[in-house]
């Protein structure tokens, strides 16, 4: 058990989950008090001791299924693939019409909730259709795809919906509910399939290898510029607490000595109760700082995915702070604050913004110079000595005039200017990137390729108490 545990912990660390020595010891100790009869008990024990962040559970479950998963029913074929169906088919028929019979049997098992039968059926389907061979250098997803193509998951879904939806009263919620029930059942088939295939691959290649092949990046390590649709959904869930944190950090005065001035009147009044001894000094409540945030966001094509996150961040910040103004630009700049106010839905706002905002003037390629100039000419009143300017963009200016003069005017008037660049620092100043031209003037420039880096930025983001003198260029 101990060796399995240490290997498992090694795998977690390899994914990027921080597991400390203390936690590893806790886990070993906790196993003593765990009934090992069911896997789920062990999963709960290891989850509670090794994982301390809800975002890490997906990766944990993936690794757990490899290291402590169920044994597969069948095994991988040795040598060449045989075309004869394996013995003991559990669905009727076989031969060319086998697919339909399989579908029927799957439906029956799913609707009856018979997990054992489902496992046998899936194992059989893998025998027949996956063509798994020992030593073949392909991933489990390829085998799963081959089987699913034959099972025809779409047809299974449609037939499940038709069967479940037999009730007389059908309204739109009922329809949606039945669809979701059917989808959950199809998902059971997919999960079972993955379990079976993974199990067989483990028998062939060993746990360590399979775990490494199945590894997915943690949410905080996903590249924000190239996230897939699924990853985006996950990222968006993680970004909301982050925005709230950024808002409080920006709103925070420096804590030390933040109690406010001595309130002499109230101190004397209070002292009367103690015979005039001023025991409890009373303080005026500290003045609430009212930070003003100005966000300039490059929303051009190359930045589309990242811009979505910055907009989301912005949306969440404006729910926390009163004075937030948002500007989007490509080769023109427009204020988009109105699209992300508290009483609009975020996705609606995003759609409305891309339709209505006046941000494309010429060809739709970023023009930072023109955008900063417009910012200065049309909205210079938005930037005051109390405002923090946050700029998000890759500073790829398509070899146009960077507009440094307007940029520096904006920076000089602001209290602080921070730049977030989603590109890897290695590529700054290569090609048409003019990052260093801008970075000299900024108070901070951060690479923000992943949520982890964004978090680090938020962690550091406190306002300077006074404006620092800047050296003009």
């Amino acid at each position, binding site marked *: 058990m101990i060796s399995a545990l240490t290997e498992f912990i090694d795998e977690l660390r390899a994914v990027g989950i921080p597991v400390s020595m203390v936690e590893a010891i806790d886990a070993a100790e906790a196993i003593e008090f*765990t009934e090992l009869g069911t896997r789920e*008990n062990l999963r*709960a024990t290891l989850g*509670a*001791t090794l994982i301390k*962040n809800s975002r890490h559970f997906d990766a944990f479950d993936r690794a757990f299924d490899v290291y402590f998963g169920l044994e597969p029913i069948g095994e991988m074929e040795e040598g060449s693939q045989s075309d004869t169906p394996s013995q003991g088919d559990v669905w009727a028929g076989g031969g060319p019409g086998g697919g339909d019979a399989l579908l029927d049997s799957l439906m029956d098992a799913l609707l009856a909730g018979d997990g054992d039968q489902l496992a046998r059926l899936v194992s059989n389907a893998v025998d027949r259709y996956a063509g798994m061979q020992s030593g073949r250098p392909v991933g489990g997803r390829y085998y799963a795809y081959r089987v699913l193509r034959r099972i025809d998951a779409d047809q299974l879904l449609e037939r499940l919906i038709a069967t479940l939806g037999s009730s007389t009263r059908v309204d*739109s919620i009922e329809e949606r509910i039945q669809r979701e029930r059917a989808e959950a059942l199809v998902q059971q088939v997919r999960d079972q399939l993955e379990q079976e295939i993974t199990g067989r691959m483990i028998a062939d290649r060993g746990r360590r290898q399979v775990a490494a092949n199945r590894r997915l990046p943690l949410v905080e390590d996903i590249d924000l510029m190239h996230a897939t649709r699924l990853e985006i959904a996950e990222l968006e869930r993680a970004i909301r607490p982050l925005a709230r944190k950024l808002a409080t950090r920006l709103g925070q005065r420096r804590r030390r000595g933040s109690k406010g001035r001595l309130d002499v009147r109230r101190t004397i009044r209070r002292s009367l109760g103690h015979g005039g001894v001023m025991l409890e000094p009373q303080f005026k409540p500290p003045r609430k700082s009212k930070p003003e945030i100005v966000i300039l966001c490059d929303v051009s094509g190359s930045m589309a995915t990242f811009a979505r996150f910055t907009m989301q961040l912005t949306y969440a910040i404006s729910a926390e702070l009163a004075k937030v103004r948002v500007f989007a630009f490509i080769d023109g700049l427009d204020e988009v604050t109105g699209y992300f106010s508290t*009483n609009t839905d975020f996705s609606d706002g995003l759609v409305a913004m891309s339709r209505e905002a006046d941000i494309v003037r010429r060809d739709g390629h970023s023009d930072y110079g023109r955008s900063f100039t417009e910012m200065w000419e049309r909205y210079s009143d938005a930037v005051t000595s109390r405002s923090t300017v946050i700029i998000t963009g890759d500073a790829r200016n398509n070899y146009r005039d960077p507009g440094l003069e307007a940029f520096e005017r904006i920076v000089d008037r602001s209290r602080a200017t921070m730049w977030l660049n989603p590109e890897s620092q290695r590529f700054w100043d290569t090609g048409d990137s003019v990052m260093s031209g801008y970075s000299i003037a900024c108070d901070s420039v951060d690479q923000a390729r992943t949520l982890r880096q964004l978090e680090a930025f938020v962690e550091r983001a406190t306002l300077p108490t006074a404006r620092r003198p800047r050296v003009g260029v």
Partner: protein
Amino acid sequence: MPTNWNSPADVRAALGDAGYLADDRIAQVVFLATRLDKPILAEGPAGVGKTALALALAEATGRRLVRLQCYEGLDEAKALYEWDYHKQLLRLQSDEGAQWDDLEGDIFSEPFLLERPLLTAIRSEESVVLLIDEADRVEVETEALLLEVLDAYQVTIPELGTVEATTRPIVVLTSNNTRELSEALKRRCLYLYVPYPTIERERAILEMRVPDLPEQFVDRIARTVASIRKIPIRKAPSVSESIDWALTLLALGIEELDDAATASTLNVLLKYQTDIERTAKELSLELDAETQPE
């Protein structure tokens, strides 16, 4: 640990008697906490019963519940202990001729100490359940206060020395995940993530909390709420809101829970107008005049 629980199943039964439906994972983690003497850090969206777990634990074990509600600005004087200035001053004034050395020892002693929740929990004769609610609300610096208590179950008061726990409390911290708690704190705890319940568990909760609810409503409510939680909105309906919804439907005497009935009561489930509109759109519901914005 004077709990007579020998297995997670015992925990589950005891919590069930206290009106809390624990799933296997929750029962297992609570059982481990009592065996390893470790605090439980319960994290998850608002309204899934994290605080209720602590309350149920107190009831199930017959212990007193000591609650520390966290908020921004919570400090030592409000969490651990404070010296009673007023009383100390009266003592000094009443005895003006006395020697300072005698007085000093006197005024920094037990009778002048004001206990705050953490110290109360540590000093209690009988062991208690200590609930540190919404731990994510305090600043990172204040979090450090908790470490000594959670680690060694002791509190150090410079004038008095170290107060050690005579009995081990069961500690539950809750967090709504508005910020990451520090690594140091997390390392000391067993982590229990409490997500929205599964459809089966939500059904069981509804059956227990709203016993008059007709059977066909239970399933429909659980599934509708689960479906709404998948829509990206600002505030997804919590368990307490689905219970409220069930109660509302009963109070209104609604006989058939169809699209129209759902649309007209959606405002019980959702707290923002934008969320109501978005959800209505996703579920293809017609909002009637009442739930439309003015």
